[in-house]
């Protein structure tokens, strides 16, 4: 090896071209694009369509305006959700490194919180529960989405894989 530090560093650390798939990766999870989220999480939305329809019909006046908030801070996002929907989502004050918030949006009476659990996408949907609904335990989850009621709110957690649930739960729960 030539003992010239500068030239070795310039050569060994030279710039490289970004892989072509980088754009696809950025594009695929851009939170502000309905199309991108819809494509990746179409199954999650399908699973919750019944819940969303029910929630729509129960919300006084309904909320047809869609708003989006890109935020990685759980406290700020929780406050935004509370201010814009009235829902109280018990996000952890400090998220573990494996959980990365992307943002939230309101869609016709429900709120969708998009985040990354490990290397995969996850989404928590919150809507108004039916009157008289009783709280349901949600410590056992199967499939790609699971729904439960808590404090008058219906929660639906959707993951790309059922194996991700344990990790995805850390959005709100301690390890």
């Amino acid at each position: 090896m030539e003992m010239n530090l500068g030239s070795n560093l310039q050569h060994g650390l030279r710039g490289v071209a970004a892989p072509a798939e980088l754009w696809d990766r950025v594009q695929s999870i851009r939170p502000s694009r309905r199309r991108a989220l819809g494509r990746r999480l179409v199954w999650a939305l399908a699973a919750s369509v019944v819940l969303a329809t029910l929630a729509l019909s129960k919300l006084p006046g309904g909320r047809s305006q869609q708003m989006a908030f890109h935020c990685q801070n759980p406290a700020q996002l929780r406050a935004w959700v509370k201010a814009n929907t009235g829902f109280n989502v018990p996000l952890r004050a400090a998220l573990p490194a494996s959980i990365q918030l992307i943002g939230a949006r309101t869609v016709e009476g429900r709120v969708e919180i998009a985040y990354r659990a490990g290397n995969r996408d996850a989404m928590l949907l919150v809507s108004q529960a039916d009157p008289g609904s009783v709280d349901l335990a949600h410590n056992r989850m199967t499939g790609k989405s699971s729904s439960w009621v808590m404090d008058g709110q219906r929660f639906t957690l959707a993951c790309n894989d059922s194996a991700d649930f344990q990790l995805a739960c850390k959005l709100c729960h301690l390890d």
Partner: protein
Amino acid sequence: MVLDANDPQTIEDVIEACRQGDTDAFRELFEAYKDRVYSIALRFSGNPAAAMDIAQDTFLKLLSRIGDYRSEASFDSWLYRLVVNSCIDDQRRGRRMAPFLDGLMDAVCGPAESVLHKLMRTETEQRVQAVVAKLAPEHKIVIVLRYTEGLSYDEIARVVGCSPGTVASRLNRAHKILERRLWPWK
């Protein structure tokens, strides 16, 4: 249209369009800066998979925080700060630094007459990358910005948020560590 990253007015126009949610403008920014962002991420992490994650994270941050950018500062410096922060975040997450195997495989699979030469070059590059990867983050980032991006001390200082004197000190310290590790017999 190819964005001229050296034209401040063009950059400002594209950034403003980006703030308004113009997808084409974001694509222009991405195309103009993707190689730089990825290169820093790769040289800092030493791992192509991690570099993709860091670059992806950086561009998502760019998109979500473009409203925070103030035109009195250099956009390049602002973007470099996003990359540096993503690199540090990634390292804090404790990602394993994998050795570069791709280059070695390319060399072995190359034409017979150049295999030895390529292997030697690849070995040198890998050694440099390996010793850089073991530097402390504050030393590693100044080395990467200096040698991957060719930034001046002043530019590095603006990105990292310290004085040019501190940059010089860190580079000097990093050089000594690298020399000792690359050529222990020297």
